[in-house]
């Protein structure tokens, strides 16, 4: 428990967000410490994706507070979040299909010569070197993103997320719709990133993944974080019970 006396890298208090009549977040709280891997689990519609989208600045919350390294923000925009060190790899793989791998990795941060010309050669060389360092295998740096497999695309998206020195990496169901070998490679990569000292938030439905990678698990239900448990103290069954709400009933009976 000594670890937890550290200041969290990010903490979220009472975050609310509605889309029309649908309350996606109904006062969510979350804490992420530097260097830890935290899993967020929950049923479909529990608010996981909405929560992380507010953290990456893609949507703005209706109310609540986001604290990053001790500073409070009402809302973030994507550029702010990136500059504060929050990089997100989205579920819907946001790559530009008709552009090549290097262009995708450098999207929004292209190096330029003479202040105007995008330095294509530098992008290709750096992207290739960077992918090699991460052990992400791609056919050729000039290939369009649309021609890659799911795992390769995820690899490129991850490379982009960490290329510009993030501190917190958010993965939204990184292995959804992926084959066994490919998802193993992606999980391995996430594990390595955790070991390198990045804070990681992993959203997943797969208990095996969660227990393999994360030290702590936050469980979301109906727009709230209903419990945060340590993977060392509970079984996957307990977590599933928390997700469905059966856990509370069980706790009521036994108390």
């Amino acid at each position, binding site marked *: 428990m000594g670890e937890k006396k550290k200041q969290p890298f990010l903490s979220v208090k009472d975050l609310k967000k509605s889309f029309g009549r649908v309350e996606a977040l109904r006062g969510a709280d979350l804490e992420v410490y530097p260097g830890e891997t935290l899993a967020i689990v929950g049923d479909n519609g529990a608010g996981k994706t909405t929560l992380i989208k507010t953290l990456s600045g893609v949507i703005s919350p209706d109310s609540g507070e986001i604290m990053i390294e001790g500073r409070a923000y009402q809302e973030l925009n994507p550029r702010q979040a990136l500059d504060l060190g929050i990089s997100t790899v989205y579920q819907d793989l946001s790559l530009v299909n*008709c552009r090549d791998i290097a262009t995708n990795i450098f999207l929004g941060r292209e190096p330029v010569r003479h202040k105007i010309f995008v330095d294509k050669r530098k992008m290709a060389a750096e992207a290739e070197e960077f992918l090699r360092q991460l052990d992400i295998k791609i056919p050729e740096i000039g290939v369009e993103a649309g021609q890659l497999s799911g795992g390769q695309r995820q690899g490129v998206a991850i490379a982009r997320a960490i290329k510009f020195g993030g501190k917190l990496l958010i993965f939204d169901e990184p292995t959804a719709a992926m084959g066994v070998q490919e998802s193993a490679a992606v999980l391995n990569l996430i594990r390595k990133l955790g070991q390198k000292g990045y804070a990681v938030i992993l959203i997943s439905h797969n208990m095996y993944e969660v227990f393999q990678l994360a030290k702590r698990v936050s469980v979301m239900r109906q727009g709230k974080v209903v419990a945060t448990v340590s993977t060392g103290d509970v079984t996957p069954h307990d977590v599933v019970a928390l997700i469905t709400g059966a856990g509370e009933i069980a706790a009521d009976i036994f108390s």
Partner: protein
Amino acid sequence: MKIARSKHFSQILLLLILLIMGVVLSFLSPYFLSWNNFYNILDQTSVDIILAMGMVFVIASGGIDLSIGSVLAYSGIMMAFAMKAGMAIPVAVALGISAGTVIGLCSGFLISCLRLNPLVTTLGFMSVARGLALILTKSSPIFGFPNAFKFLGSGRVGPVNVPILVALAIAVISFILLNKTKWGYYTLALGGNEEALRRAGVATHRYRASLYVFCALMAAIAGMITVARLNSADPLAGWMVETDAIAAVVLGGTSLSGGRGSILGAVLACLVLGMLDNGLILMAIPAYYQKLFCGLIIIIALVATELRNRKEHRNFV
């Protein structure tokens, strides 16, 4: 197969069409194969090329601009009024070009910030600009401009007409902008996946708006050349030029669904359409056939894009 898969397939095909058309027309008409006639085609095509350059950017970003013909006429008229009011030529030109560009700014703002449909928005501005042009002139053309201004439309620098030089310069600049600058990169990313670009921290609405400003700027420059060439500012100038420009752009390999754009292809396609126009005139066939042809190109390109998108979608899912 290698050529068919090449990124430059459209451009290579266009070059072949250009050559074949040249050979065929040389046999069909005794007047076709002459330096003067080629020069004439280039000169006639220069305005189309300028218009197509703006359109490449807008279409590559996944949008469209129907208002270019009206902006062309409106800019020309504002320029003409300014000169008739005794303003210096550079001032009048700047005023006319700004007037046209403002229309692009308005449509760009509405399309990017309010997320209005570009087709309908620019259709509206097409009518607004044409209406303004007709109201201001009471629907009759304005004639007679200073020689220094007419130089912009029919003057020569060495052996080459000014419009050809302007079109060439704009084509080169557009090529660099689209392929070598962040602005061009973001244009293609907007057409490919706007949300990805936004999540990468880019202020996408500013970039999208700027494309319509650029497109209107090109239309205004085309308006200046048209007025200077004909020595007349006609409120009906540039009637239906948007179909030619859109046809040239899609024929040149720019994707109607956005994400891909080719400057070289658009220039070659303008030359193909210009040569077709010229050939029809020389063979005494009404030039209306060229319009028919442009319309068919747009529809075929639309169908091809749709079919390809469906195929890609199937592969992905």
